[in-house]
């Protein structure tokens, strides 16, 4: 019922595979996916483990709704200790892989140890086996996916794999499924690479059932009707995708540009959703081919794009002239605004390469931005870059580095360190725009105050997807708050964090939350899953998950001192826009946040809090 109630444990060191019953006591307390897999992870893994050691584990997990007809219910997450951050990592991906895992009869797959030689896991319903992947090692995500489908002569196999970047230890490598959906952040693909695990391929045909089908259909259909009737999820996202935010955030004065030196970018329009839809001069066709959905998604915000055939990146390379996964907002920001590059085709090309070689465009773009600043101040020179003129705004530098980083060659290997290690290496740790080693995404914490607290307290390092207060502060969802003030943001962040943990653990996409509240989600979970699931229970689950993750990080050695933003955001005021003259007010929000969380002033959950949540 909703849960398959079974997991697969793969010991890569021993080459063994075994089935286990899912711990349903835990499922009742942590729901699934992010929450439940984190519970398994913290129970089984030493918090001090080196992320790249065989003692680290990696869990691919679905939620109870994954594979059902609830809208967007095709998600899975990769849970591990992040290679980029050393913190608990949970990266969520759409596409069609999560559904396939559930249909093969598994809620999650736990990988432990490390294989001596490259392997991939092939699951064909009840039959799971590790297969030699030596002939795929050194190939891209795209080639790996094609090869596995071809080897098994089954185009319906779903594949999640790593590219060369993940093999070679680029710190922010992703796990990519369905060619261009990715569990993108924190270096979960790097961990996978360290285990010599090239791919997980699944064919599942068993079907997914729910507790009360009649009620579930009603609840799921009601949920879909809410999404369809909501102007954001029903019209805005399908038509313009997340990229519609480029002009919004720029206008709001919260679009970090050139390594967060500025909060607005002159080239914003040129790399926005509006630009993606404009016919280009050479062939009269727009960058955007069409929108596309992940499994079960009735929103369909995904972009399918092509690059202008005459563009320097692809003119001689027809293999990149076909349609593929196009720019989403965060990627476009990092590849564009963060680096000062306003060439839409160059960004699209870099994005293709990120997908093809499996690494996170956010961390990559942000790191290139940081490197550009290092270059500008002379901390790195042409000698280090191998002759790449690493100037802000250079499309050529961006696309060259994209290819080099994908293969971890030349200066690409340095970019592959991530901004924190790179900046420290060249003596300017302060230039890394990151928290807990993970680069910021596309919102400036001076122009959107809540996001500063979001980044600082995110359990997986700087991240917008742990509490997307942009929704409230800028977009007015569910209600408008003032982005420039810090008052009330601690509570807002906490509420978003707890609710988001529920969405991430249910098997659905957090984008539904633009239209859905937990009032819309609870009936779907309650009809699908055994047990009683109300908004209140779910919120408690969300809070429990948040504290579980925090506890792990604390045990791993993180302290309140790690809940901080780079000095630039605390001291250098925004130069333009509504936030002109403003810095982040994190120091005012953080104590209030700890208090609201029931944590000590040092950011440690009190015994009372832990007891209340049953931790």
């Amino acid at each position, binding site marked *: 019922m909703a849960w398959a109630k079974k997991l697969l444990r793969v010991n890569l060191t021993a080459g063994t595979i075994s089935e286990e019953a899912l711990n349903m006591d835990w499922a009742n307390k942590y729901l699934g996916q992010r929450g439940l897999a984190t519970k398994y992870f913290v129970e089984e893994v030493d918090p001090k483990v080196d992320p790249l050691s065989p003692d680290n584990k990696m869990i691919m997990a679905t939620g109870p709704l994954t594979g059902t007809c609830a809208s967007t219910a095709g998600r899975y997450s990769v849970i591990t200790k992040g290679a980029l951050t050393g913190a608990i990592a949970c990266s969520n991906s759409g596409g069609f892989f999560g559904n396939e895992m559930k249909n093969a009869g598994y809620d999650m797959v736990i990988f432990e140890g490390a294989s001596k030689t490259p392997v991939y896991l092939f699951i064909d319903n009840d039959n799971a086996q590790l297969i030699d992947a030596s002939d795929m090692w050194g190939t891209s995500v795209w080639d790996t996916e094609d090869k596995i*489908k*071809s080897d098994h*002569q*089954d*185009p319906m196999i779903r594949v999640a794999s790593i590219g060369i970047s993940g093999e070679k230890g680029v710190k922010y490598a992703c796990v990519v499924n369905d060619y261009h959906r990715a569990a993108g952040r924190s270096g979960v693909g790097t961990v996978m690479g360290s285990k010599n695990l090239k791919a997980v391929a699944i064919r599942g045909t068993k079907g997914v059932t729910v507790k009360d089908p009649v009620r579930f259909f009603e609840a799921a259909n009601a949920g879909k009707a809410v999404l369809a009737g909501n102007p954001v999820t029903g019209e805005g996202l399908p038509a313009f995708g997340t990229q519609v935010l480029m002009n919004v955030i720029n206008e709001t004065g919260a679009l970090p540009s050139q390594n967060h030196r500025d909060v607005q970018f002159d080239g914003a329009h040129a790399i926005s959703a509006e630009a993606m839809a404009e016919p280009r001069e050479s062939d009269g066709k727009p960058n955007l081919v069409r929108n596309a959905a992940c499994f079960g998604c009735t929103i369909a915000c995904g972009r399918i794009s092509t690059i202008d055939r005459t563009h320097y990146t692809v003119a001689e390379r027809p293999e990149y002239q076909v349609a593929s996964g196009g720019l989403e907002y965060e990627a476009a920001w990092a590849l564009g605004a963060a680096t000062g590059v306003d060439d839409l085709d160059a960004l699209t090309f870099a994005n293709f390469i990120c997908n093809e070689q499996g690494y996170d465009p956010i961390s990559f773009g942000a790191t290139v931005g940081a490197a550009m600043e290092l270059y500008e101040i002379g901390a790195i020179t042409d000698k280090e870059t191998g002759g790449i003129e690493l100037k802000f705004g250079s499309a050529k530098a961006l696309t060259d580095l994209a290819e080099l980083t994908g293969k971890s060659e030349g200066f690409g290997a340095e970019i592959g360190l991530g901004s924190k290690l790179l900046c420290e290496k060249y003596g300017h740790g302060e230039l890394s725009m990151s928290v807990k080693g993970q680069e910021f995404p596309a919102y400036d914490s001076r122009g959107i105050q809540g996001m500063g607290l979001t980044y600082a307290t995110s359990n997986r390092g700087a991240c917008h997807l742990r509490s997307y207060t942009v929704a409230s502060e800028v977009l007015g969802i569910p209600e408008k708050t003032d982005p420039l003030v810090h008052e009330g943001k601690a509570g807002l962040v906490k509420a978003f964090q707890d609710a988001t943990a529920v969405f991430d653990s249910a098997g659905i996409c957090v984008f539904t939350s633009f239209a859905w509240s937990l009032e819309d989600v609870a009936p779907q979970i309650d009809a699908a899953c055994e047990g009683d699931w109300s908004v209140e229970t779910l919120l408690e689950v969300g809070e429990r998950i948040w504290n579980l993750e925090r506890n792990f990080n604390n045990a791993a050695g993180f302290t309140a001192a790690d809940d901080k933003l780079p000095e630039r955001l605390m001291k250098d005021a925004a130069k333009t826009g509504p936030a002109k003259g403003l810095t982040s007010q994190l120091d005012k929000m953080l104590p209030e946040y700890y208090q609201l969380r029931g944590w000590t002033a040092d950011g440690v959950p009190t015994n009372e809090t832990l007891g209340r949540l049953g931790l």
Partner: protein
Amino acid sequence: MTYVIIGAGPAGVTAADTLRKADPKADIVMIGSEPEPPYSRMAIPYVLTGLIAEEGTYLRKEEGHYDKNAIQYRQGEAESIDPKNKVVKLKGTDDQPYSKLLIATGASPVKPPIDGLDLKGVHHCWTLEDCRNIMKFADKGADVVLMGAGFIGCIIMEALAERGVNLTVVEALDRMVPRMMNEAAGNMVKAWCEKQNVNVHTSTKVTKLEASKDPEDTLVVDLDNGKQIPAHLVVVATGVKSNIDFVDGAGLKTDQGILVDECMRTSVDDIYAAGDCAQGPDFSTGGWAVHAVQPTAVDHGRIAGLNMAGKSAPFKGSLNMNVLDTVGLISASFGKWDGIEGGDHAEVIDTENFKYMRLEFDGDKIIGALSLGRTDQIGVLRGLIQTEIALGPWKERLMENPHLIADAYVACSQQ
């Protein structure tokens, strides 16, 4: 107007129904030579397995179908045709006059020239009567020898295996289903059958059958390799031939079957032929062939019916195709599965998982295919071949991965 149909198999019944729709007022007479209502030989194996009762084989399930459609169903065996007087002579009963005649007499199993085939316990598996006889002998654990591992032999094999008999198959040619499969596929089927505990002898002939007294009422089957196999039952499935002897003297041109044109007309006015007895247009070769399979029989029957009723409906030709379930391994063949000279082919063999796919091309068109271990969307192979889709860039993809047939079909036909 009186339409007369000799034969009550799939071709005959389809023709009768088609004629009724096309010509509501005409008289329609269908003549069958077996005592049961019109039934399907294809379904006999499922009676053997117990999945269905005999009634389950009937070609039309609706109560009173023939009466309701004013199709007069007459018992009788055609002796000869008198085209001049437009009369069919029937054995031991009144002649049947016709305005237009359809010959749909099907085919019969051939008996190889081997001693002992008349012994008790030796049967074809062709009629319901045969089926009843086989069921008497083929009990669980009984020793059964199946002569012939062609298409029909294999269909029966599945049923016999399911009854739990100790089964031995003897095939004279070098592989199983030799007329439907190449060596690679035929050998894969053999390996599969052996894995399912069926004894398979290929390149082996039965030399004679003898009655045995130990135990009572059994047989001994002598093979040309010197072996002797005991049997409670021997099933003979060594091929079929068209039932056309009775048309001698009627002036119809015949070859392997009765020659018909693209409208299923024979060489004699107002006489048509369809189904296993007809040698009709062959889609793949442009020539004429007997394709003794169900889809061809009903296509023939429908085309013949339409043309007899005066609706011009020329036939583009039948595609030789088969689908077979050999003890759980499902295979299919289409068209020129053995290819043409100078044509490309794509082939993937997965011996371990008993999966096989081979596509034969003429330029960028598929002209034939063989498949084992796959059932999904397999029909698109017919579509690809018969609509002569120019594959363009999809040919290269299929050369790389022939399992993309459905994608190729949809891409090329629905863009």
